[in-house]
């Protein structure tokens, strides 16, 4: 996870669209796969992308207008579930010729794409591709699906932010429950203790943590807490405890904190 933290830092600091390219290179090296590509397409066929494919392939893709027949694009349009390329419809002659051409240009025989829908039929895709057998590819997807889904969303938000004229979703404030959950976690309480403090089940607590993590662009809970502190969204430690008026569940919390420390 350490390397992904570095990726997120680089993502956060990126201030030009071209840097998305470097980020895809970083992902490729880290996951040790052939290629990583970010591709943005509008409903009327406008497109741009960044990735590690051979520039000759990107050029050819554009010249041959493969966008119209690429089963990954056709199959992912309007959907929101992650897609294993094998599950797409490659039965047409055009698709088979395209696949042959793609493999000849080093794209790889396996692929995994995360589609993200935008307004007006826009589609953003983060794709991982590789040359390997079905079994090891299935293992790769299963092991990394969660990370890739998050990375896809964060990368897309960044790309939309940097691309002029395409407004990304505004950064959302944390809700009261999310703020509470991260605050208590930041104070070192366990999930079980936090759920008790908020009077909800651990399963429901997890939903608030997932939501907070996503809004903060974080990969894991530790990172989410750190980010919330940096952004000033939560206050943990002495300041919160010393604050007048007591915070919810304070006495209960102190008791738990003591027992947790002991």
């Amino acid at each position, binding site marked *: 996870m350490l390397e992904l933290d570095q990726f997120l830092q680089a993502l956060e600091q990126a201030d030009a669209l071209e840097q998305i390219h470097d980020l895809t290179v970083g992902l490729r090296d880290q996951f040790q796969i052939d290629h990583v590509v970010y591709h943005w397409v509008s409903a009327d066929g406008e497109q741009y992308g960044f990735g590690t494919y051979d520039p000759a392939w990107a050029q050819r893709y554009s010249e041959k207008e493969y966008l119209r027949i690429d089963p990954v694009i056709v199959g992912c349009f309007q*959907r929101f579930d992650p897609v294993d390329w094998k599950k797409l419809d490659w039965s047409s002659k055009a698709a088979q010729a395209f696949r042959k051409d793609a493999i000849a240009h080093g794209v790889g025989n396996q692929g995994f794409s995360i589609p993200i829908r935008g307004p007006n039929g826009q589609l953003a895709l983060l794709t991982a591709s590789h040359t390997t057998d079905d079994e090891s590819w299935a293992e790769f997807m299963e092991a990394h699906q969660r990370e890739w889904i998050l990375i896809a969303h964060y990368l897309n938000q960044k790309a939309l932010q940097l691309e002029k004229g395409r407004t990304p979703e505004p950064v959302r404030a944390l809700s*009261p429950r999310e703020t509470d959950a991260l605050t208590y976690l930041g104070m070192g309480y366990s999930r079980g203790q936090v759920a008790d403090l908020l009077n909800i089940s651990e399963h429901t607590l997890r*939903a608030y943590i997932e939501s907070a993590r996503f809004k903060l662009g974080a990969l894991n809970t530790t990172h989410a807490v750190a980010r919330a502190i940096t952004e000033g969204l939560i206050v943990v430690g002495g300041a919160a405890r010393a604050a007048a008026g007591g915070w919810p569940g304070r006495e209960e919390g102190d008791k738990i904190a003591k027992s947790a420390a002991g």
Partner: protein
Amino acid sequence: MLRYIYANELSQFPVLQASMHRDRAVQFSERLKWAVTVDEMGWERDEYDDMNPLYVIWANPDGTHGGSMRFLPTTERTMVNDHFAELLNGEDIRSPFIWECTRFCLGQKSTPRVAAAMMLAGGELMRAFSLTHLLGVFDPRMVRIYSMIGASPEILGSAGEGRDKISVGLWPFRAEDRVKVLRRAGLSSEISEHWFNRSFGRSVQELQKAA
């Protein structure tokens, strides 16, 4: 059988589509008297049906609708965040791992087995796409049905009384629920996987044959 169908592919199943929207009119307009829109064909539809949601539909042997629900990721506009924010005390839940599940509807002759099959399908989606929760909107009858099949949601908030009551709640993904729900639905694990694979693409074996 269970089908997982995006809205833009639903017209390939005209009987299923029409009977689903008509059963939704019966359940939400006639029976529950919710302020929903029913068009001249007798179909209940709303703006979220226009956002290309994913439906899970139980198809009866004659091809008509036996039960259904509708999914949208909470990273996009959702009914819960648009219309039920007050039930959540201003919480807006957004995550690619939490999908909204709305318009849970059962056909008029459907048995509890169909309800269990729908729950199974929700679990299959969670399992396949790394979801942690489904965020749902439902009526009291559905709460009873869920509890009967051993898959109660955790209610986050409710409004109204008696049959007018409407609730928002979360179903967490619990791997151990699958066996229980399979048994309730009277289905095997293999057939559930088969239906899932059929909806989400050809199986690996079929592809190898085609190559």
